[in-house]
């Protein structure tokens, strides 16, 4: 069982996933939408709070574990993924979520991001993508594009931005999605799909930083600068991938030609930016075994006796391991 289902239909309410810890995010921060999406999703899914662990790195967004009433592990800058992977492999019953900013995950932590894809451990990674390092006063993050000059940059960005969706694909993430922090309804659906996915799920969340990113603002995503001349309504840049013309599913019956076509569409949509910014599920690949299944191939009782749940000693503290066979390999008299 990946998570414990409640006995009655609604045992846990959204409020059960909230804490009293003081939240010091800036007013209007995009982080709030992601926080409520996480809380609502857990309530939607009725996962008992104690079955969930949220890992984060360092930065504004990485404070999120303190605001969710689940186990919350606020780790080191860039390191949330290996911490999360360690916990999940030690106890595969946990629902493991990693969360953090784009600087954290794609700058200092990008090596772990790529390596996580190779393993396909069953966890969900939510990346708060706002193009800046907020907590250190607005330096350019790894997703900010070349030549863009956000508010506190002394010069336009001299580096180009990395495309997290393409990187996730290259790394091997088997579920890749993008959401928008001001569309909570859509985002909570993406997070649910991510958690339900058996394998490494990456959810890129466009999250305007109202304090330091004055380029990709809520108004920019919402298209406030380009109103329909007839209706006077804004023409939003963010739009949802349509199930009718974009199918993210790769399953056991998807043939090679179809996979080629799907990956082509993926790349096309992942690179779309500027006038139109797609959100939704970009990829769901169910053909790659998750890491726990790979372990269970070698350690047959892995799920019944995972590393964190083994009895290692008897009541007196004597070791349970019987190493006679290993000693025999090196015994000489």
């Amino acid at each position, binding site marked *: 069982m990946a998570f414990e289902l409640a006995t009655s239909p609604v045992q846990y309410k959204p409020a059960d996933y909230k804490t009293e*810890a003081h939240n010091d995010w800036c007013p209007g921060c995009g982080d709030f939408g992601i926080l409520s999406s996480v809380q609502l999703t857990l309530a939607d899914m009725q996962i*008992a*709070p*104690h079955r969930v*662990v949220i*890992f984060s790195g*360092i930065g504004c967004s990485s404070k999120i*574990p*303190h605001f969710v*009433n689940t*186990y*919350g*592990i*606020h*780790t*080191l800058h860039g*390191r949330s993924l*290996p*911490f*999360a*992977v*360690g*916990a*999940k*492999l*030690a*106890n595969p019953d*946990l629902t493991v979520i990693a969360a953090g900013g784009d600087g954290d995950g794609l700058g200092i932590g990008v*090596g*772990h991001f*790529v*390596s996580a894809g190779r393993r396909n451990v069953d966890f969900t990674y939510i990346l708060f993508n706002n193009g800046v390092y907020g907590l250190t006063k607005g330096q350019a993050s790894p997703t900010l594009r070349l030549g863009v000059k956000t508010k506190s940059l002394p010069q336009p960005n001299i580096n180009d931005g990395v495309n997290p969706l393409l990187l996730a694909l290259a790394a091997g993430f088997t579920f890749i999605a993008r959401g928008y922090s001001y569309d909570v309804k859509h985002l909570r659906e993406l997070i649910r799909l991510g958690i339900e996915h058996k394998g490494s799920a990456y959810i890129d969340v466009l999250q305007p930083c109202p304090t330091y990113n004055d380029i990709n603002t809520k108004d920019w995503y919402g298209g406030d600068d380009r109103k329909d001349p007839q209706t006077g309504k804004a023409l939003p840049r963010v739009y949802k991938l349509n199930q009718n013309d974009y199918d993210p599913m790769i399953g056991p019956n998807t043939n090679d030609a179809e996979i080629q076509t799907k990956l082509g569409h993926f790349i096309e949509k992942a690179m779309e930016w500027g006038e139109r910014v797609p959100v939704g599920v970009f990829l769901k690949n169910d053909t790659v075994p998750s890491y726990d299944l790979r*372990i269970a191939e*070698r*350690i*047959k*009782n*892995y799920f019944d*006796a995972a*590393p*964190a*749940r*083994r009895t*290692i*000693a*008897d009541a007196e*503290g*004597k*070791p*349970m*391991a*019987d*190493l006679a*066979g*290993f*000693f025999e390999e*090196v*015994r*000489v*008299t």
Partner: protein
Amino acid sequence: MPLNQLSWMTGGAQGSGVDSAANIFAKACTYGGLHVYGKREYYSNIIGEHSYFQVRVAETTVRSHVDTVDLLVTFDAETVIRHGHEVASGGAIIFDPALRDTPINKLNTLEPQVTKPLLEKLRREELPATMAGVLKMAERRGVKMFPAAYDDFVNALIQELNVDSSRAKKTLNTLSVAVSLGILEYDFDMLGPALEAQFKGKTKVIAMNIKAAEKAYNLGRSQFAAQFPCKLRKVKTAERRLYLTGYQAIALGKLAGGCTFQTYYPITPASDESVYLESHEVFPLRNDDENGRDPETGSIVVVQTEDEIAALTMAIGAALAGARATTATSGPGFCLMAEGTGWAGMNEVPVVITLYTRGGPATGLPTRHEQGDLRFALHAAHGEFPRLVLASGDIDEAFHDAVHAFNYAEQYQTPVVHLVDKALANSTQTVAMFDLDKLRLKRGKILSEAELASLQNGGYKRFAFVEDGVSPRSLLGSKHGIFWNTGDEHDEIGHITEDPTNRVMMMDKRMRKLETAAGEIPQREKFNFFGDPNAPVTIVSWGSTKGAILDAMKVLQDEGIAVNFLQARLIHPLPADEFADILRRAKTTIGVEMNFLAQFAGVVREHTGIALQHLIVKYNGRPISRDEIVESVKNIVTKKTTSRKVVLTYGV
């Protein structure tokens, strides 16, 4: 040279089977009830550079290597050239006469630092600049020459067994070992099981090697044995004994200690341990099934990570979930683990780091020995937090300390650094069978779900202020046990706070755990004291120098110099009061360690205020030998040495 006292050495190009040869010889000795100690030296290279293996054999425990060789067993020219001068007068060299004319200049794996003085010496002695010249030089010192024409054996094998020449040539190591066993007049029947152990299950290979060995053994016995005084004889023993390598002992200790999760990133000399664990990932449990034991119910998950940062942080994640989790690395990898170590200290996570030290700084001497990381192990990471650092002196201690490390980590909920070193990791030794029955796993304060449910006063607080500093743990996933961790300073449930009063209370609580540990850990796990307390000389040391010091004490005793030895095992928290007591009573104090700064002597001074009078240090990448300890201690006692610090430099 008396019976059953031997220093044996073989060498050759890496990849040519030097290790196999030495292990076959050593195992043949051990099967006959003899004790052995093996020292392995090798380059940071896969194929071609010179490696060598010294094996000491005796009837009683051997713990160290010596600087002389009684029997040098070679099948290439370079080994003769590099080690010819180490062979004792009265000793012997087994060599391939076909290689006599190999010019020293043509061996591109020999460094100019080796060839220049050697060629100069040969010139002075008017000898040819070839392997033959080196042999002649040794012969002039009274070393016996035992030519073994390996080609003849190989050709005979090709004809008799109808094998191709490349296969037949693979018996070269066995041939050289067999010649040496013949010379030593050792029981030939001990070789069969040694070959079987080496070439597990490869029946054809074993048969071919036995066939080859017979002839070579007979050559040694009939042609050379009469000229060589040293002999090996089987002895009876009732002891159940293991012959293993340091890293194997640590790996087995981890399994015995209930470790279920190990991470690593490949690095010399630490990764051997992880590879061993991965190849032993499933095993039976005691009494685990009344219907017959399942051989695969116990297990350890071994994860090769993308780097050492991930290695430690992944182990921490597993430890938070409740696994006994660990990582193994050496200096450069531990540098990358500094931040994670601090995080584990801040969040009171029990995690064990097995640190195999090697020559530093930077890449340093990646395959060579040093104890230069002691200060780093004590201080790695910014800020102040409690940690325990323990150091093993030999293979038996390494096994037991691997268990202690997990006990300490869980009892005091903090990172534990288990310091071992290259010399210990790669040396082999016969040791008495480990007794698992005597081990006790102490998991410290872990709350069950029922205990968590029964908590009053607002429920569970992960970092509750408690007297001994050790707040009961809840494991990830436990009902009623939710907590938060953060690298920031935090309150009792784990939320960030920068409140100054809380800061002081939390710092005090964490640091108090060291006092708790110091009070609870039994003295025998903290240090060893060997020898007569009233001896006029006290040696203070730590780590793998233990063997050389203990073996040297016997020699010194025979020469009328009584020495006692204080060996530190728990480096932090250091048992300062006990150390001060011993050092105040000591007349002459000598610190021995394998680094430039005499780091441990500094730690002793820091905690006791006592400066050791003399220091013996070594940092040329080669471990201290028994002989070096004997000589340098004698020089200090007889006042031949006047400087406080003696730097040892021997090694090939």
